């Protein structure tokens, strides 16, 4: 049976792992190599590594850094941040990425997704969405690390990207990011209710029960979290044990 994935997320700036709140703030919480290693040993099913300033500073993510910390990590790594060309995707894959997440460039150039899918296959191209609730309903998609409005409806955009062939979606709730008050169930349901491709959700995890809650209500394929792991609220193993004991399909050894 296919298992639900627990995916720690490393937001990277320069040579550090940082963690913001509502996608703002660059507080250093650790070192990519140490954290990647730690989470791998604790049983992470996958790692999500996003350069959160690449688009903002209009530069590329550091492929050399990626190479250095992806050593010794024998679970999949999805990498994102400043991906703007098929060359970038190729460089990322050669540096240790298994999947590549794209946001800013794809929103501005949706056909790029199709181009990337044709070259690398759907299963390698992940759509990253940063969504913020609109005051009058619905959610707006943001770019550049949650800083630039696009005027584009996040749900509609996800549908379009699926048609263009993306194999997976990573959905980040800007409203719930970093505040540890639970996942954004409303946002997640809006996409999980129709998405024919796997969905990984991020933003707001606080307790083992918040993981349980989102699984019960929306059943995403992957649960990503950052603050709770980086700040040591609990470990990946704790989460997996909790979900396993509650009868969910989790890769977990007793």
């Amino acid at each position, binding site marked *: 049976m296919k298992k639900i994935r627990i995916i720690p997320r490393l937001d990277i700036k320069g040579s550090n792992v940082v963690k913001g*709140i509502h996608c703002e703030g660059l507080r250093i919480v650790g070192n990519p190599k140490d954290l990647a290693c730690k989470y791998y040993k604790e049983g992470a099913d996958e790692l999500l590594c996003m350069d959160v300033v690449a688009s903002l500073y*209009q*530069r590329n993510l550091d492929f050399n850094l990626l190479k250095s910390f992806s050593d010794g990590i024998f679970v999949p790594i999805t990498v994102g941040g400043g991906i703007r060309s098929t060359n970038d995707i190729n460089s990322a894959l050669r540096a240790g990425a298994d999947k590549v997440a794209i946001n800013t460039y794809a929103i501005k150039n949706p056909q790029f997704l199709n181009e990337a899918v044709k070259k690398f296959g759907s299963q390698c191209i992940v759509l990253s969405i940063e969504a913020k609730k609109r005051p009058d309903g619905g959610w707006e998609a943001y770019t550049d690390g949650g*800083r630039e409005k696009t005027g584009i409806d996040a749900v509609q955009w996800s549908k379009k990207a699926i048609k263009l062939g993306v194999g997976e979606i990573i959905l980040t709730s800007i409203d719930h990011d970093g505040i540890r008050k639970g996942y954004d169930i409303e946002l997640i349901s809006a996409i999980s209710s129709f998405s024919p491709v796997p969905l990984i959700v991020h933003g707001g995890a606080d307790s083992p029960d918040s993981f349980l809650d989102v699984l019960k209500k929306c059943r995403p394929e992957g649960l990503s979290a950052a603050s709770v792991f980086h700040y040591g609220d609990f470990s990946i193993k704790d989460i997996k044990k909790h979900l396993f004991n509650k009868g969910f399909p989790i890769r977990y050894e007793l």
Partner: protein
Amino acid sequence: MSPIKSRKKLKSSEVKYGLPSEVVFCKRCIISNQRPNSTVEFKNTKEDKKETIAFGRDGICDACRYAEYKDTQIDWKLREKELIKLCDKHRSKNGYYDCIVPGSGGKDSAFTAHVLKYKYGMNPLTVTWSPHLYTDIGQKNFTSWIHKGGFDNILFTPNGRVHRLLTKYAFENLLHPFQPFVIGQRNIGPKFAILYKTPLIFYGENQAEYGNNIKDNDAPTMKESFFAQNTTLENLFLGGVSAKSLISKDKISLNDLNPYIPAPYKEIKKLGVQVHYLGYYLKWDPQECYYYASKNTGFQVNTERTEGSYSKYSSIDDKIDPFHYYTLLIKFGIGRATNDAVQEIRNKKITREEGVALVHRYDQEFPQKYFKEFLEYIDLAEDKFWKLINSGRSPHLWKKEKGEWKLKHIVK
């Protein structure tokens, strides 16, 4: 490396505001030597020459020098002990207020009030000088500060008509629309201190950290001349015009002046009012203030980045604020992104290179969002706005190229 030498000696008429004629950028943080120091606002007139940030021969600015000093030379444990001593001296024993914390509920005042109350056991009365025009997020954060953070608060809103008029004059005469706000904000702490007989006032950080006279950082307190004066109608300047002149021209009346008159020396001395900077006692880090405020007072960032910058949490409560920064860009060639970036470079959140990328991308962005509202607020036609803006550009900073204004010097 010696500062950039200009190719020709500039005539004094080509350099406005008494600024240095050569433009130099700090090698560490990207601020330029055109950055003006803080002024005593109620003495500010059009003819004033600006004092600017000092640079060393090594091309490093005083603010960076201070940041290094902050990091390496200050014994923060000792400084905290001084704070505790100060708090012990003033802490209320009968439930009355023991300090005044002026602020708006932004990240800095949120941090200041909260840490004083909940860590150091003080009983602050928070006082707020109203923004000219509240933004939604500003209002939200202000409310959250009081209701989630948990503070008594007095919100003082000046007569809107007078305030608008003074803003208009400040813009037209000084290209400084924020002046009425700054005056009021500096006055409010001491005036409520006197009213409530609570002499201890806490601000967050000392503006000296950003480049005022570096020696100003050595003291925990604000110079009295910044918030106290024996003012007369002749020596009180609002919007660049003397109060006497404003009254004689029937623009405002004597009754309208109260919020803008600083506390008199006599009362300040009698009560022993002191304005302390919390940033003297606790190592100030605006980003950490954000995290703290987010956690403890429900502070929320703006939904989008601020126009002219990349930040989502810096100074987001007043619709006039973007025009304050825009006029800084026009007068000194320094935009909002520069202001936000230099502080983050000094606090080691971003590198100089990253700061440069942000400045290139955002510094000159025009604040379109509230432009119409701003013009309405100061009752000014758009063409007059641009006429004033363009006349405020110093020739040593700006040039016209193919009908467009361009900065002569941009940091690299």
